[in-house]
């Protein structure tokens, strides 16, 4: 464990200031109200690309800056504070990790530089049912003379509206539930037979359902090893989960700050309500939870940077602990603000909606408790 490096501290300050000034919650609200179907503001994403953040986990040889996962986490946390909507996590972290970990030279050359500069959005299409269940992958990849043919569906794909390409988990063998027989494919967004349906979610970001109706792929579209994509998928997901831990921590930390501020300013019964022990103790409890969650989030990101064998359980720990804290915090955000917290005009509702969306992404707390137990052998 280490405290942040000087470089990371500087970047944290930079990201905090940028998100506050250039991509604050008000901008997200504006995007929501404008009926933007993409789910993020183009200018915001372009600025993120220019600052190099989309290339944080991409090697320099492919146009990235290669600063590692803890650094990415630092940025995601700060953007999470302002609910900044962008494909940074879906593409800059998850899509990029898929290619870095599983891509061959040609695939890396083709996509990583574009992901790094933000000119292409590559996202992971994994879940098919209502709950996160990578092993339940059932989308069929049938062998053809020249490659594969994909049939099936994917649901709630992150940044699925804007994506230029999808990393698709499909079944080349076995049955849903089997660990083997999963393969990953890189599918371009304009592939024939691929349909996408934008979803209007409570959180207003760009989710889509995908239909694969006999999408023909060349053999070169395979990412990693045929039938053995399960482990690769898990590794990609873990990078996403660690990033989500950081983003969730940011959303929750901001919710905490807003609540604490309200406790110090709202006057009832002749005094600020933060002086009431019933509220002060809840704030103290939330702060304690936040500190524990932060330790888990940082440990997971550092374990990924170090290539530690402990990374998988730590990523589940991070997702579960940050998720538990965010869940609790987002409810307390509303409750402690009282009536004002219920109004759409106030931001609390936006934080609550983002909270549940992030909790459900790549496994909620229950999923990760179960996974942690399995990894520990109990």
């Amino acid at each position, binding site marked *: 464990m280490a405290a942040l490096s000087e470089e990371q501290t500087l970047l944290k300050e930079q990201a905090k200031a940028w998100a506050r000034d250039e991509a604050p919650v008000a901008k997200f609200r504006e995007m929501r109200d404008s009926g933007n179907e993409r789910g993020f503001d183009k200018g915001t994403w372009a600025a993120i690309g220019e600052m190099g953040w989309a290339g944080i986990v991409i090697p320099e040889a492919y146009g990235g800056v290669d600063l590692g996962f803890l650094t990415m986490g630092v940025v995601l946390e700060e953007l999470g504070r302002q609910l900044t909507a962008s494909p940074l996590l879906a593409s800059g972290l998850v899509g990029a990790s898929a290619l870095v970990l599983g891509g061959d030279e040609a695939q890396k050359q083709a996509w990583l530089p574009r992901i790094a500069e933000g000119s292409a959005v590559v996202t992971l299409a994994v879940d098919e049912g209502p709950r996160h269940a990578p092993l339940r992958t059932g989308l069929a990849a049938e062998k053809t003379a020249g490659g594969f043919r994909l049939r099936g569906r994917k649901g709630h794909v992150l940044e699925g509206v804007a994506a230029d390409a999808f990393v698709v988990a499909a079944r080349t063998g076995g049955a849903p539930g089997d660990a083997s027989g999963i393969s990953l494919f890189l599918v371009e967004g304009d592939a024939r037979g691929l349909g996408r349906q934008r979803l209007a979610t409570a959180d207003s970001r760009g989710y889509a359902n995908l239909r694969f109706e006999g999408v023909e792929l060349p053999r070169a579209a395979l990412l990693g090893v045929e039938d053995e994509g399960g482990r690769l998928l898990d590794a990609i997901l873990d990078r996403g989960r660690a990033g989500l831990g950081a983003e969730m921590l940011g959303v929750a930390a901001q919710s905490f700050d807003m609540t604490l501020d309200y406790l110090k300013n709202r006057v009832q019964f002749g005094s600020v309500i933060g002086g009431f022990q019933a509220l002060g103790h809840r704030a103290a409890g939330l*702060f304690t939870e936040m500190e524990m969650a932060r330790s888990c989030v940082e440990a997971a990101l550092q374990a990924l940077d170090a290539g530690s064998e402990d990374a998988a359980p730590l990523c589940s720990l991070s997702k579960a602990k940050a998720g538990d804290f965010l869940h609790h915090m987002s409810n307390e955000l509303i409750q402690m603000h009282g009536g004002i917290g219920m109004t759409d005009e106030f931001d609390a509702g936006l934080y609550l909606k983002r909270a549940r969306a992030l909790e459900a992404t790549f496994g909620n707390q229950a999923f990760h408790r179960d996974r942690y137990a399995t990894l520990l052998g109990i």
Partner: protein
Amino acid sequence: MAETDPALEAFRAEARAWLEESFPPSLAGRAAALMGGESIAAAETDAIEWARRLGARGWGTPTWPAEYGGGGLSQLAAQVLNQELDRIGAFNPLIRTTGMGITMVGPTLLEYGSEEQKQRHIPKICRGEVFWALGYSEPNAGSDLASLQTRAEDRGDHWVVNGQKTWTSGADIADWCGVLVRTDPDAPKRDGISFLMIDMHQPGIETRPIRLIGGASPFCETFFNDARTPKDELLGPLNGGWTVGKRLLQHERQSQTGATSGMGGGRRRSIRDVAKEYVGVDAEGRLADADLRARLTDHLMSARAHALTIARVTAEARGNHQVGAAASILKNAASTVAQQRAELLIELLGHQGLGWDGEGYADHELEAVRGWLTGKAMSIYGGSFEIQNNIIAKNILGLPETTQRG
């Protein structure tokens, strides 16, 4: 953890070599058995000899200044020493055999004591020759400690102390006691308190052990009837005892954060193994009771989060060991996690988790029951869970004070 420091590695080799020749192998892994009570079992000559050697080397108090008999080690070197102790199942008995001497009194004395006081008291703690108790709580001054009534009168060259203390850990076997007394009854309650050090071996002091729900306990009631102590046993300024006493409590919290090692704590039976043995597993190796499995997992995750937080706080302090506000957070997390574990443990044991003593129960089953009961005190002593929340709310979050009235 990335880079290794050559000086530290050299120290590791030195510590390892010294432990090799000084630590009796017969004691390895037996910290819990040997240190369950307040003093090492008299029959254990090896243990007594080990305590003597560790004390003579100053490594029972590794970071204290060498001039007073401490080890003079840096915080990082002390961590290395603890790792080396843990590695061979060794432990630091002086943490127990000096009572509150190492964890609380010593650090406070080093900060507030006069040169004479340090010379008089610190070396004896380092060598493990003196057992310290603390007289803080009173029957009517628990969480509201500042309302304490035990008083000390100035009689020229000495103080005369009258009153009653309670929850005085180890008072019945203590050599010395640090006592918070009222020296100015007319001042506002926090401003009339002083910290006195009192020799327990005198007729004016009587102790009565308190039996707790877990059976025996180290706690006593302590009665002061015209007890005496010399004038120069006042620690810190006259009527400045609240500050000194609070500082000492910060050290107490620090010792209750779960961060203290070198206690051989890593060798206890894992709760995972207990779960598998008593609950059984299904065909896929999962704990047979799904509800228990989920709750056990939740506990293990909280325990890991707590351990990671200790590591993070230590790293962020850059090895600079300091008593901070973080101690309140860590203490509450530590007591929550420990109590959660104890409850789970007896639940896992089923009927075997109901024993009190005698036939039909294994030693570890009985220990689980006693530990479960005794552990309820963790969220009460050293400033209760609620008092810690007051401290967090006020000192860290900057919320208004709620307990200053009166």
